[in-house]
């Protein structure tokens, strides 16, 4: 098969992985080296696909042969999709060529499990090694690590990669046992823990580096601390492939953030795949559910919400019609309205429509003036959403009721996928 044909198959096989981020790593450039590439902390999306997703990395599988039989996966052993396998060099050349054209920020390499977890991981690491060592490539590399691969392989992967990830795929152990019989939840957690320990150690050692440099009359300098996945680790959870509700999903996310310091949990609405398994009797969930989970995740990471307080309803699901912050506010009317000119940061962060940046600017502006609704407009805060929950010198909200808030909001541009399958 020619490279074009392989690329088609192996890009197809990789498109269900939600992550494409290329941010959060150390700053590097190719000055003083022999190769090419740079990273400046913030990633760059070089293109967008009609599915609205950013294309930042060359996201491919090394091979889509896989001996696992995960029901939700297009590459499972029992699927009839065409198979292909890249050589290490082919992936390297593709990455370098696309990078020179400025089409990508780097590579996101994953693989079906062939022969054994260790064998597969070794091949994946080899691509990164050749890029870094033989071509002095300084762009971004994200490697998907194979759970239960040998610790030394994880250690090597962390040396070359900016980010490592292991997909947890399903929020509960039982879900995983049912849909992905070969995957082992404890092994996944163990690998995440291992990565966290490495990442923490590397960070700790890097601090030591700085301390030595800043000392007057420098002593003999220690060897530079070995880098390990400076952009941290991430994971993906598939939404709607099993019966787990949003409450369970968010509880698992909170646990992953707390236990392993993940940089991101990606949520991927289960997507129809060609050649689906018969035992997957599922309608795909509406994409808006995935969107609500991202919003809820955001509330946990940046707005001080605990995972247990986000989902209020008895069915354990986030409301699809309003975003989770608004839903929380509607369910806690007794806490509102809050005085924009007096309320503490934590409370302002809970006002619908007030983003983290807007809150910072409100706090800054409050020191020099009393804020009125015009000021909010200047901060591009959606007034229809925020005003019912705020007390301002020129605004006193009436009793908050759902219909009134809903009327004040523009109908949300919700793309509900379900219509297709009704």
């Amino acid at each position: 098969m020619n490279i074009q044909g392989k690329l088609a198959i192996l890009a197809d096989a990789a498109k269900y992985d939600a992550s494409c981020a290329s941010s959060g790593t150390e700053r590097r450039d190719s000055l003083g080296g022999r190769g090419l590439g740079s990273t400046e902390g913030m990633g760059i999306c070089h293109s967008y696909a009609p599915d609205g997703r950013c294309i930042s990395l060359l996201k491919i599988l090394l091979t889509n042969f896989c001996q696992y039989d995960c029901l939700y996966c297009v590459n499972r052993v029992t699927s009839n999709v065409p198979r292909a396998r890249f050589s290490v060099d082919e992936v390297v050349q593709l990455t370098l060529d696309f990078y020179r054209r400025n089409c990508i920020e780097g590579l996101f390499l994953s693989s079906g499990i062939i022969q054994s977890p260790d064998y597969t991981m070794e091949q994946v690491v080899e691509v990164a090694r050749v890029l870094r060592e033989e071509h002095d490539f300084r762009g971004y590399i994200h490697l998907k690590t194979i759970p239960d691969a040998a610790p030394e392989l994880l250690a090597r992967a962390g040396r070359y990669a900016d980010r490592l990830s292991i997909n947890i795929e399903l929020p509960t152990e039982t879900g995983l046992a049912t849909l992905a019989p070969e995957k082992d939840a404890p092994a996944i957690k163990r690998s995440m823990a291992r990565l966290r320990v490495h990442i923490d150690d590397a960070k700790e050692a890097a601090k030591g580096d700085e301390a030595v440099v800043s000392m007057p009359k420098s002593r003999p300098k220690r060897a530079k601390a070995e880098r390990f996945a400076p952009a941290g680790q991430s994971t993906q959870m598939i939404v709607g492939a099993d019966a787990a509700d949003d409450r369970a999903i968010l509880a698992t996310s909170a646990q992953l953030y707390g236990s392993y310091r993940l940089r991101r949990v990606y949520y991927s609405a289960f997507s129809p795949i060609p050649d689906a398994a018969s035992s997957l009797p599922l309608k795909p969930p509406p994409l808006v559910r995935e969107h609500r989970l991202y919003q809820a995740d955001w509330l946990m990471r940046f707005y001080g919400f605990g995972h247990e307080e986000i989902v209020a309803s008895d069915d354990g699901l986030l409301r699809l019609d309003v975003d989770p912050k608004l839903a929380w506010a509607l369910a806690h009317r007794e806490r509102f309205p809050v005085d924009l000119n007096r309320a503490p940061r934590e409370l302002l962060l809970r006002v619908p429509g007030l983003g983290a940046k807007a809150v910072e600017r409100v706090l800054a502006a409050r020191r020099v003036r009393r804020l009125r609704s015009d000021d909010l407009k200047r901060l591009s805060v959606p007034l229809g959403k925020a005003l019912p929950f705020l007390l301002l010198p020129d605004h006193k909200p009436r009793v908050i009721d759902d219909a009134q808030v809903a009327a004040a909001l523009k109908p949300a541009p919700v793309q509900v996928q379900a219509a297709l399958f009704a």
Partner: protein
Amino acid sequence: MSTVRIALEGEIDWDGFRAAARRLIAQGVPPEEASWSTGTEADLFDTPSVDAWAGSAEATTTVPAAFVDLCERVRLHRDPSRFALMYRLLWRLQHEPALRHDPLDADRLRAQAMAKAVGRDLHKMRAFVRFRPVHDGLPEPLHVAWFEPEHHIVEANAPFFMRRFTHMRWAILTPRRSVRWDGSSLTFGPGAARSDAPSSDAGEALWLTYYRHIFNPARLKLDQMRKEMPRRYWRNLPEAELISELTAHALPRTGRMVDAPATVPKRRIALLAMEEPVSRSAASKPLPNDPQKALAALRMATDRCRECPIGEHATQSVFGEGPVTARLMVVGEQPGDKEDLQGRPFVGPAGHLFDKALEDLGWDRTQLYVTNAVKHFKYELRGQRRIHKTPTQREAEACLHWLESEIEQVKPQALIALGATATRSLIGHAVPVLKARGTWLTGQHSLPVLVTVHPSALLRGDPAQRDEAYREWLADLSQAARYMAGAGRG
């Protein structure tokens, strides 16, 4: 009122603006009386440029550093009024002290919006410049790109491409400016035409293949795409030509996928020697006779243990560690955060204190068997932190048989119980640790059990009394010295 006209040299003349602005401030020229032009329209003005002024440039004007950063961006904006806005802000900063504290001032907001637009343009140029190789006779090709920026950003963005593509020769052509890097220096030139840049090549076909196949037809979200990749960029992005075709076919493709009946797998990929999957009920299997192997089997089984709810939330079980020949077994409460991550007992802060005690007692940890009464870490999430929670009596009871199995395999001559949970597990009922500490009790297995506090209690205790508490703890532990003296039973 006369108008002072300032002609800058070109669209992004930063030094010229700073020098002129400094002089204007020094001369007390209010913003309404200054008018700014860039090189291109300079001919319209016949008045002397600001350089002819006699004003002193020495007069220093101090502004917040953030203001300078803001202006560096704003000057790149294509809006002809940008220099007037910048000067007005500078003037107002000198005359209205409150301005620097007011993030909602209209002029400030406008400048910020302009800076943001420039920032976005800089970013989009980094994203959407597409190089195509041109073979111009040298061994390595020249990479040429055509791009149409919205603002005057070519000069400002060139160093980015230089840092990224240091060892590549490249040129970026735009309607107003062009820039070239030959491997050692950046050269700026006049604008170019789109036809000066090369057209698509075979390598680009690979990129189109990738674009076509990374798209998931079941997730059409065109608005999202257009928001991040506005149409004005499309004509210079080769893959944009595929958008309408991919979009048009997305719904039928998805429909076919959903309607298609599940297929029967045509073949199986050979399953290569995989280890026998670990049974999820390994606990019920008979244990191997060799104690070493038995402990390994138990370790694996505790990892799968879900007899109480804490196992599912922990990373892994933390099983005991030490030689099967150990004469002394030390039993703690439960693993903590560090132990949970590493899968080993006593490696966190309490473990460090324990190690220090062993060192002070002259004991060798490798001759002890160290374990916990409860095998999984129980915690409560507080934000991103995991706070240790004491296991309930039920949880400790559910876990007890694992500890008993360890004792059975190791057959120690004596045990040390650290803290209340360990003591209860070993003695069989609650014992007031503070009263019983330093004494030997008889455990469920008729083995002697030395009771003392858990090291984490020392860490939590009053810092003023820490040294004293530590000495008392050492005294407790030292009672077991005779079991250590003989070391292993070997």
